Every structure is written in C-alpha cells, then in structure tokens.
C-alpha cells in the first residue's frame, strides 16, 4: 500500500525537529494518527498559536507574548546589569537561581563561522544598541569553543565602550563532591582558577 502524501509530509515535518530521526518521526506521525482526534487538533492549535502570539522582545530578544517582556518591563530589576545568554533555556536556568536581578539579552545562537553563523545572525547589534547606562555585561554562554569566542567577541566590542564585561565561571558544580567531578571538568576548573 502506498503511503498517502499527508502522512509523508507529517513525517518529514517531524524529522526536522532537533533530536528526531526518520524512525522517530514516523513513530510520532503514526502515534498522532492512531490517537483520539483531539490530540491532533490540540497539537495543531498549539503550534499555530505559539507562532502567532509569541515574538521576540524588542529590547532583549527573549521570547514573549508582551513586548517588552516581563523582565524588561520590571522596573525593580537593575537596568545597569545585562546577562547575555545563548537561548531562552539559558535565561530560565539563570533565573531559577534567584540570584540575578538585572536584565537579560538572548542571542538565539552563538558565533560559529564553520556553520555560517556570524554576529549579524545572533543579535549582537541589538546588544550594542542598548548599552547606554549599562555598567556590566555578564556573558553566560556555554563553555564550548563557540561560546568562548562569542564571549570574547562581545568583550572586544563592549569593553572599549567603558562597559565591564565578565564571564561566568565554568567548573565544578556547587554541592558536588570533588571526587565525583569528572577529570575534564576538574581540569577546566583548575585552569580557570582565581585569586582569593
């Protein structure tokens, strides 16, 4: 029996999602077909709604329903302090600590010349455009080569403008016993040690 076109289209659409291969995409598609009709309609509605109602905050690029987003609109947060993150998950992780009371800037990516990602693809210009009154930028990009390069690039652009640029430390997770930290993490933590 030949597959009907809509099924193949759905499988193809699922297979574009991160972490989903052809096999998983087919499994998801047939799950949707076999499930109660409301499963498919709810999924379709949620997908349409998220695209229609969620956009990037015009200040910090966070994904939001209202512009500016709730962090930018919150007058109690310190506007002189900006934490730069690669994505919204990064923002949420910092926010969960409850330690940070400044504003955010979401890059939606990181520099990666090998993948054709340059400064224009990751909202660097928007960041530089909102530095008036900012005293410190905390760069919380990932500890990968791309994350490091992104941090250093921001430092090279914002530093000369009189803004202090700092980088979150990478290393041993708090509360974990040293002996259980893996050797690569430990050696990074040692390389990044600071004076007390």
């Amino acid at each position, binding site marked *: 029996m030949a597959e009907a076109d809509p099924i193949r289209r759905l499988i193809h659409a699922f297979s574009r999602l991160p972490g989903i291969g052809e096999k998983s995409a087919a499994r998801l598609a047939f799950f949707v077909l076999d499930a109660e009709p409301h499963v498919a309609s709810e999924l379709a509605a949620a997908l349409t709604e998220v695209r229609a109602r969620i956009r990037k905050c015009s200040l910090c690029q966070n994904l939001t329903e209202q512009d500016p987003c709730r962090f930018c609109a919150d007058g109690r947060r310190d506007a002189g302090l900006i934490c730069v993150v690669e994505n919204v998950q990064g923002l949420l992780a910092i926010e969960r600590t409850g330690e940070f009371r400044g504003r955010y800037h979401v890059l939606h990516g990181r*520099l*990666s*010349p*090998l993948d054709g990602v*340059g*400064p224009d693809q990751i909202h660097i210009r928007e960041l530089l455009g909102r530095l008036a009154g900012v005293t410190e930028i905390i760069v919380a990009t990932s500890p*990968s*080569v*791309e994350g*490091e*390069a*992104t941090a*250093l*690039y921001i*430092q*090279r*652009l914002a530093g000369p403008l009189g803004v202090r640029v700092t980088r979150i430390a990478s290393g041993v997770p708090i509360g974990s016993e040293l002996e259980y930290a*893996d*050797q*690569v*993490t430990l*050696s*990074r933590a*040692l*390389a990044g040690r600071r004076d007390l």
Partner: protein
Amino acid sequence: MRLTGVEIRDFRNLAEVEVFPHRRFNVLVGENGQGKTSFLEALYWLATLRPLRVARPREMVRHGADGARVAGEVLAGGLIHRLDVRLAGARREARREGKPVRAGAYFGSLAVILFTPDDVGLVRGGPGDRRRFLDRAVFNTRVGHLDDAVAYKRALQARNALLRDGADDTMLAAYEDVLGDHGGRMLASRQAYAAALAPRFAHAFTAIMGEGPTARVELRADVEDPAALSATWRAERDRDRQRGFTRRGPHADDLELTLDGRPARLEASQGQQRAMVLALKIAEIELLEAEHQITPVLLLDDVSSELDPRRNARLFEFLAGFGGQVFITTTDLGFLAIEADRRVFQVESGRITALEE
C-alpha cells in the same frame, strides 16, 4: 592497573570472546587474519574510546551484526572497575560501573600503550604522526590535554574559515584569544612532557643499541613561548588572510628525533629506526610509572617479527623488568622469550581459547 576479565561481542571478526587474562603475560598465538590484532584493537578501544586502523567506527562492527561491545574488569588501586563500551549504529556509549558516563569521566580508567609494526612511521613519517604520539602520551598524564587539543583544532578551523570569508579584525581577535587559551596550555604541556621524556629516551636508546650514535628527542615548537601565541597570530593576520589559513602555532610543532644531531628520518637505518620507536615507548612507560604512578597495560602487536635478535632480546629484558600486564600477539611462540608468568591463548577464526599449560 590490569585487566582481570575481558568480554567481546561482534567486534571485527570476533563474534563472542571471553578471556580471563594473566596478571603478567598474555600471549595470543595464531595465523594472520584469525583475530589476534582485533583483540588488541578491542582493548585499545575499551581504553581510549578511539578506533584503531579503521576510518569509520562502523567498520569495527562484525559483518552482519547490529553493534559491537567490549567490556572489561580493571583492577586498579585495589578496586575493580567495570568498563564497557558499545557501538550501536553511529552511537557510541561508554559505561563505568554499568552507568553511562561522559568521556571526561571515563578516561583514566584504563591506560594502555600500544606497540605495532606501524609505529616506525613515528620516525619515518611526518610531524603529524609524532604530534599524535606526543599528544596521546601527554593525555595519559593529563586528561585535560585532550579537551584543549580538540578545542584548539575546532577554533583553528573556525579562524581559517574567517580568514577565507574576509572577517574583520575583531572577529579574528576573538578566535585568537580562544586559540591562545587552549593552545597555550597545550603547548606548555607538550614542552613539559618532552623535557621529561628526553633523558629517558636517550638512555633507553643507548641500552638497546649499545655504543654508537646518540639519539635525542626534542620538541621543536613553532612558537616557543605559550604566552606569545596570540601576539604571533595578530602579527601574521594579514599574511594569513592572503594564505587563507593559519600558518603558525602548535599545529606546526614537531617532536624532533635526531641521530648525532641529524634528522633520524633521513639518517637512521631500519634497525636504528625500530630502536628509536622502542626507546620512545619505553621512555613513555617509565615516565608514567615514575612520575604519575600509573602502570599501563601494554599491547604488543606482532613486534618481534620486525626486530633483529639483539633488539628483540632487549625488548624482552625490558618486559621482564616491567611489573605490569602485557598482551602480546605472535604467529610463532618461538619468537617470544617468555617462559613463566604467562597464559597462552590460541586464536583461530575469531575464537580465542586459553591453552592448558
């Protein structure tokens, strides 16, 4: 450290193997193509998570099988650790004590040093072969070295892409900072290691060859001061733009081998080349034991057939003095001067059986 048990499934031509090694010498004897080398490759993979001799990991899987698996029990510091690495499709999973772990937490569990007839490429081949030897040796003593080497390579590719795309100075400078960070640590580790290796190498070479020319090993660093790397790249930026790639840096280093001051690649005879390789490995093992208190497991693939009787005798003299565990393959037991403290395994058509002695 030593292996107390090894289990292999569908690795190369080994369908199902279970071996309980001797704490000292394990001799695998058999005709060529029966699976002796595959067994050493399996142990090498278990220790380093790197495939040996194959272009793609998939080639490690036995023809017709879905995946490959190698498991080992390692006795180290009085404790038994269970290591396990498997390949299913393109996915590799390493486990320690039955739990999946990242490579960073896995490395260091089992240190191996491999001797193969191909090693002579260390002397005859290009600088790349020697850098690989050096980096692997450094990695055995400092796990973070691999992390730095991988990051350096990635940042180097990125800088090269930027050079060709006509990127501005700020972008290049950011990548030079990243390169300087990883490259600086990488270079300093290489320098320290090569300096410690040099006297042991010269000594081991003389012990093998007796009176004769003096052999030296020395790191020829392209940029000698780790702190000067970033400045070098800055100064080379315009010329690198024209070239389209990054010329200077640790990726252009060489671990230079000389005989009476002249390049061994050109000067050394076959016998001297093999003696140099042997001396390098012996120096590496001695350094691991003396300065890092690690006794590695040695994997020797058919090396005796390549050595003349005198150097072969010297090799077995060294092995007799080495207290650790050794796996050695041969087509003929007569090549090996190992009579005691041994277990002999017959390898035939992918099956490995211990011989009663």
